[in-house]
Every structure is written in C-alpha cells, then in structure tokens.
C-alpha cells in the first residue's frame, strides 16, 4: 500500500511544483515590497519627528502583537465589507507585505540607531544635508547590522506564507492539504511539503549565518 501511495505522490509531483511556484510568487512579491516599505518606515521611525515615530511604532506593535493568521482573515474578510473586493492572492500578498514591512522596519530602525550619533554630528558639521547623511554616512554603516537579520526575516516571510493557504491560496501547504485527502499518508505528503520548504529556507538561513560572521569580522577590523 505504501509503495502505491508513494507512486501516486510521485505522479502528483507537478502539482506540488505548481504549489511551490505559488509559494515563491507570494513570498517573493511580499519580500520585495516589504523590504521597500519596511526600509521607508524604518527610516521614518528613526527620524526626529515624534508623531511619525509613534504612529509607526503603534502600527508595528499592532501587527507584531496579533497572529498572522488573524491579519490574513481581517484583510480577506473585512476589506470586502468595506467595499474593497479582493481575491485570495492579492489579499495574501498585502497581508504578508504588511507583516514583513513591520518587522523589517524594526530591523532597519535598529540598524540606523546603532550608528554612533557622533557620525551624524560630524556629517552635519561637514555640511551634508540630511539626505546626504543618510545616503553616505548612516546607511552604509547600518547595512552591516541590518543585513543578517534581514535575510533571517526573509526566511520568516517564506515560512509565514504557508499560512495564506488558509484562505485558499494554492501554495505548497495547500497542495499538501489537498493531496492528503486523496493519499492518506500524512507523514509522506507533509514530509514532501517540508522538504520543499527546506530547499528554500535552509540556504537562506545559512546565508544569514554567513553574513552575520562576515559582517562582524568587518566591524571588528574597523
């Protein structure tokens, strides 16, 4: 029986690859958009404007304090009642982008804050505008602190994208869920699902570790 199911599973492999593509699409889009939005929020969060800072801080807290599944449900079920019709896919991307942006915002703000204030003062004294300060002094140094956790965050985005299967996005997890109704070998089916995620996440985790080692070496050299 086991080998029969195994062959069945091999035969439905294209279905899994389609799901994998969906996972990559959802998390890839959210990752790019989340990085851009998160960086902007992070820069705003570390700015001197108190109102801006506390608004973003409050929003980040709301998102960090609630489960991603609940956020997905809120966007998918509640926005339509406000007159915004959303398919499952855009709802998933919006939810994941927003969550990713909030975490990336904290990472970026932390990185910027870690740059000693003397650097900024020196830049001000040299007559650089605040954009120039950011572009030439603060961000290049902050990048060192930002990059390793940023890649770590990408792993979280890929993993959290599995949650959007709950609103019917046919990603790898959903494919597994659909397949297990037909092939009742949960360990096998979800073993395969896990393996596919592993293939994406494990290299990313290692990249994050390598970056962490590299960046600290550079920092101590200075």
């Amino acid at each position, binding site marked *: 029986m086991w080998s029969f199911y195994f062959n069945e599973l091999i035969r439905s492999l294209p279905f899994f690859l389609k799901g994998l593509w969906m996972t990559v699409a959802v998390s890839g889009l959210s990752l790019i958009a989340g990085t851009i939005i998160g960086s902007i929020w992070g820069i705003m969060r570390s700015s001197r404007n108190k109102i801006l800072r506390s608004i973003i801080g409050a929003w980040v*807290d*709301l998102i*960090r*304090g*609630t*489960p*991603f*599944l*609940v*956020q997905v*449900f*809120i966007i998918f*079920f*509640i926005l339509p*009642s*406000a007159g915004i019709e959303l398919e499952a896919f855009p709802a998933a991307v919006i939810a994941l982008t927003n969550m990713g942006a909030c975490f990336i915002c904290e990472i970026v703000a932390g990185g910027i804050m870690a740059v000693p204030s003397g650097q900024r003062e020196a830049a001000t004294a040299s007559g650089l505008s605040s954009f120039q300060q950011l572009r030439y002094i603060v961000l290049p140094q902050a990048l060192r602190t930002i990059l390793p956790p940023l890649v770590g965050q990408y*792993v979280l985005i*890929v*993993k*959290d*994208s*599995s*949650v959007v*299967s*709950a609103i019917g996005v046919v990603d*790898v*997890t959903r494919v*597994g*869920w659909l397949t*297990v109704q037909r092939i*009742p*070998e*949960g*360990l096998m*089916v*979800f*073993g395969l*699902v*896990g393996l596919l*995620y*592993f293939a994406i*996440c*494990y290299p990313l*985790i290692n990249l994050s570790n390598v970056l962490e080692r590299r960046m600290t070496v550079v920092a101590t050299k200075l």
Partner: protein
Amino acid sequence: MLEAFNFRVILEYMPLYLQCFSATLWLSALSLLGAIIVGTIACAMRLSQSRTISRIAGIYIESIRSTPLLAQLYFFYFGLPSLGVMLPEWVTGIIALTLNSGAYYAEIIRAGIQAIPYGQIEAGIASGLNYFQRMRYIILPQALGMTIRPMLGQAIVLVKDSSLLSLISIMELTRAGQLLTSDRFMPTEGFLTTAAFYLVIYYLLKGFSGWSEKRLIFREAH
C-alpha cells in the same frame, strides 16, 4: 465597516471568547513549558562532545527552523493517524507547538551559554567545581540574564502561533472569530475581537519583558 460595528453580538459571544481566551492561554502555557524542556535537552545535546548526539540535535533544530509551523502541524495531524496513533486534536497541537518552539529555545539557550567566556568555565574547573556546580553557579545565572528577553520574545511568538491550531479545529481565540464569521457572517466583529484579545497577551508579555530587563539585574559576563 465600523459604523455597522455590532457590539451586541460581541457581548453575546463574550462567554465563548473568554472560554477560547483561556484555551489559548493554557494551550500556550503547556506548549511553552514543554518547549523550554525540549529546548534545554536539545541544546545540551547540541553542545555535547559526542558528534552523533550533537548531529541528531542539529538535524532536529535545522529541520524545524527551515519549515513552516503549519506544515509541521499538518505533518502530525495527518501523519500520526496513518501511523495508527490516534490523539485528540489538542494533544497534536501541543506536540507540534512544543517541538516547533523547542528548536528555537534550543538556539536561544545555546547563544546564552556560548556568550559566556570559556575562561570562566576553566576557572570553575580550576576551583574544583564539577559539571553541575559550574552549570548551577557560573553558567546558568549569567545565561539566564542574557536570554530572558529572547525567551519572552519566543513566548510571544508561541502565543501567536497557537492561532494556527484553529486550522485543525481546536477551539481557541482564532476559532472563535471563525465561528462568528460562519454563524453570523460578521468577520469584522469576530476577528477584531480576536485580535484585541491577542493584543492583551502581547502587551502583558512585552511589559513583563521590559520590566524584567529593568528589575532582574543579572551580572554580565566579562
């Protein structure tokens, strides 16, 4: 959306919400306890002198960290019955949450232990302390101080992750929101109330985290 917010329904469902709130609390608490135990054991194994033992723990930690919790949850939910193991849903849920968070706790504890300079351990050996005495009097008190914040952070993640248990039809906070959506067609009321309950837990844990940093003074290792 908000002008039609129906507080009466929320009041009507409040007993259900409170019941689900306590379910979320005890499910998370049990998993947290289990995760810390599993994490401590996995960390001890990871740091073991024996290559094999260390590698086994490494495989466990890496495979958990590279796959999404939802896939792990389904792995146990659909997989255990195909092995002939029949467990109630909530036990499956706690097993998945425990094993998932356990891997993260193992890494947190390891970071704490490894942050202690080796010279202190050598000094302990030179003073004639045995392994348990070194652990008890030198390593753990310092490691605890360094890990209390990431540990509480992981506890917050664990509480939020417990929302996924709703997908295997365990009655907890997120499930209450789903019920309000399916029974009364009121997703706004349902999920915003759910989110509010999670935020209560989040702010409590976050407050405790800040308090612990200020009040529990641990000497840093130098």
